[in-house]
Each structure stands twice: as structure tokens, then as C-alpha cells.
């Protein structure tokens, strides 16, 4: 059955054009993209992916060329975050539940960055994002879903961190519960909003430049998540405690 489908696909006139498209050097825009899109109703995003990673392109070279600079930048940002770790450590040592929560919050924020980035990249590839991106219903839905999920999970993290902190003889009263919950929930919500805006603006920028946003967005959002988490958390601790 599958072989039959493959054979019939090969007979399709668009197949010949796709083969032709793959042979074109990836750096050059060619009118054939527009022609195939018009004539055979194949999405421009599919044509872009075929051209980007087609037989004529050197896949590792393409990925490394597009990713390396941004990965090195992300590494530098994270290392700067590492430098601040020493100062943050001194403040956190007195607040046990926040020490417990720190790696979990870092993971959570990073995860939201990855989900937002990869889903937004796929939306761009599938052509779902409108010129006025804020009017795209899929994007609005994604934002609301992430905000609801991040608030609920932040509350859960606060509860778990307080419970573990309580077990390690940290004094827990109403004031401590309120402060720690506020710090964690505000930190997560502020960072999710920043990540969302960053992913949208950077994603649109790289996509319009003709690059694959997948190669840029995750390093950008995760490094902002890491660095931003340490900064915002310490600001909130100074403000609230």
C-alpha cells in the first residue's frame, strides 16, 4: 500500500519540481518556489524546508552555520548567570524552600521556553501566523494555555518546596508561605511573558530572514530563562523579603 502511494507520488508532476528545487543552492531564492507554490498548491513552508535540508545542501554545515553563533552567545549568557550564582547563593542560603525550588524553577522556565519556541516555529513553518501576529488565534491560545499551566505548576512548586523546607527545620509561618509563594509565582509569570515576546519577535525576525527559527529560538529562550530567572528571582527576594 505504502509503495503504491510512493509510486503515485513520484508520478505527480510536483515531484519533478520538488527534485528540481532541491538542487538549487539554498542561499539563492528562485522563482521556481513561487511557481510550484502557485501551480501545485504546496505550502511555501514545505518548500522552504525541502530547500533548506534538500540533497543539494550540506545538512550538518547548514545547521552548524545557523546555530553556532547563537549557541556560543547563549553559553556566554549562561556563564554570566553562573558568575552571579555566588552572590545569589549568599541570599538563598537563609531561605531553604527557595534553594529547593531553584533547579525546579529553572527547568520549568526552560521547558516553557522550549514549548513556546518549538510550537511557534512550527506555526511559522505551517503558515499559521498572520502579519499582525497578536491576532493569530493559535498564538493567543498558546499564550493563555502557558500562563494557566505555569501559574498552577508554580503553586505546586511552592507547596513542594515549603514541604521539603519544613522537613529540614526551616521555620514556616503564614508570612513565609505567602512570601515564598509570591516570589515563585511572580518569577514564573514574569519570565513566561518575557519568553513569549522574545520567541515571537526573534522567530518572526529569523523566519523573515529565510532561516529556520528552530535553530535560534530554543537557545535564545533557554539562555534568557536561565539568566533571567536568577536576576528576577534575586530582585523579587530583595523586594519581598
Amino acid at each position, binding site marked *: 500500500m505504502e509503495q503504491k502511494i510512493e509510486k503515485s507520488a513520484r508520478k505527480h508532476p510536483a515531484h519533478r519540481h520538488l527534485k528540481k528545487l532541491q538542487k538549487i543552492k539554498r542561499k539563492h531564492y528562485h522563482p521556481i518556489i513561487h511557481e510550484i507554490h502557485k501551480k501545485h498548491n504546496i*505550502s511555501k*513552508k*514545505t518548500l522552504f*524546508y525541502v530547500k533548506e*535540508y534538500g*540533497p543539494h545542501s550540506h*545538512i*550538518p*554545515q*547548514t*545547521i*552548524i552555520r545557523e*546555530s*553556532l553563533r547563537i*549557541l*556560543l552567545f*547563549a*553559553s*556566554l549568557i*549562561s*556563564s554570566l*548567570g*553562573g*558568575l552571579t*550564582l*555566588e552572590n545569589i547563593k549568599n541570599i538563598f542560603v537563609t531561605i531553604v524552600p527557595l534553594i*529547593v525550588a*531553584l*533547579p*525546579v524553577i*529553572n*527547568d*520549568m522556565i*526552560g*521547558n516553557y521556553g*522550549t*514549548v513556546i*519556541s*518549538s*510550537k511557534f516555529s*512550527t506555526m511559522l*513553518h505551517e503558515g499559521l501566523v498572520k502579519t499582525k501576529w497578536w491576532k493569530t*488565534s493559535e498564538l493567543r*491560545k*498558546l499564550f493563555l*494555555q502557558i500562563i*494557566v*499551566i505555569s501559574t*498552577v*505548576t508554580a503553586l*505546586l512548586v511552592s507547596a*513542594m518546596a515549603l514541604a521539603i523546607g519544613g522537613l529540614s527545620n526551616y521555620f514556616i509561618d503564614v508570612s513565609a508561605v505567602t512570601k515564598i509563594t509570591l516570589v515563585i509565582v511572580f518569577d514564573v509569570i514574569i519570565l513566561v511573558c518575557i519568553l513569549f515576546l522574545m520567541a515571537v519577535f526573534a522567530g518572526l525576525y529569523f523566519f523573515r530572514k529565510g532561516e*529556520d527559527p*528552530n*535553530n535560534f529560538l*530554543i*537557545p535564545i529562550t*533557554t*539562555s534568557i530563562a536561565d*539568566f533571567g530567572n536568577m536576576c528576577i528571582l534575586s530582585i523579587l527576594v530583595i523586594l519581598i523579603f
Partner: protein
Amino acid sequence: MKLFDKDFEEIFYSQILSLLGGLVGGTLLAIYTNQLLMLPGMLILLPGFLEMRGNISGSFASRLSSGLFLGVINPKKYNTRIIRGNFIASFLLVILVTLALGIVAFAFSFFIFGIYAIKIIPMALLAGLLANLIEIPLALYMTFYLFRKGHDPNNIMGTIITTTGDVISIISLLITMVLV
């Protein structure tokens, strides 16, 4: 607009899983904090090192997901040109990025704290390779598996990579610390 749909469930449950993974990773790090802190520059290396698995394996899984959704990648074939290319690229990126992380950690320790910790460079490189020898094939297998089962890998892969990555990266660092 239906807010509580399949996407919501997938993201939510994967986050719950991540909370547990984060706690395991955090506990592991807390247990071995003294050993890890013994090496100068380790605190500078650590955030970037932990983040790297998301940046490289996460982008790898995300590229595969886009290819799977567009129909350019066949979810039943592992040995194809696109996947081989992605695999090679990811490993080369690991080598280059861990080398850079090691050099940055060394430079910061040397110029800011005045500590000569050259050992941090081979340690970062070896630990990165070791961690990604597990992480990248795992990302490939899981992305294909989830897609074949009808899930959106974009919703779940980030969490799987972060959760497993924390534990794998910290264990790799500990193993490398013994070796170097």
C-alpha cells in the same frame, strides 16, 4: 477557542513530570555540591552546561518535529540523509559549545578570581560528549515514538530533554570529575 484541549493536557502533564525530574536533579546536585564546588570554575560552567542539552537536543527534536509534520521525514525510517545530517551536526555542536564553555569558565576563573583551572576545559568537553551520547539518541527515538503515537512532540520533548538532561548531565560531570 478551546483552552483545555489535548495540547493543554500534554504540556501540563509533561510539566508535572518535569517537576519530579527537577527535584531528583536538584537533590543529586545538593548531595554532590561539595565535590562539584571543589573544582574552581565549576559554578560558572554549570548553568551553561545544564542548558546546553536543551539548546542542542531540544533544537534537534524541534527540527525533527517540523520535518515530521511537514511530511519531509518518514516517522518509520531512522537511517535517512536528513536524520544522519542532524545527528552529525548535533555532535559537532556539542564539541564546539562545550569547548567554548570550558574556555569561558577557565577565563572567568583566571581573570576575575585569579585561579588557574585548566582542568575545567577537558572536563567540560568529556562530560558534554558523555551526556549527549545518551541524550541525542534518546531525543531522536522519543520524537519519532511520540509522533507515531499521535502526540505533538513539540509539547513533550522539551520536558523529556530537560528532565532526563539534568540527571544525565550531573552524572556525566561526576563521572568525568573522577576520570580527569
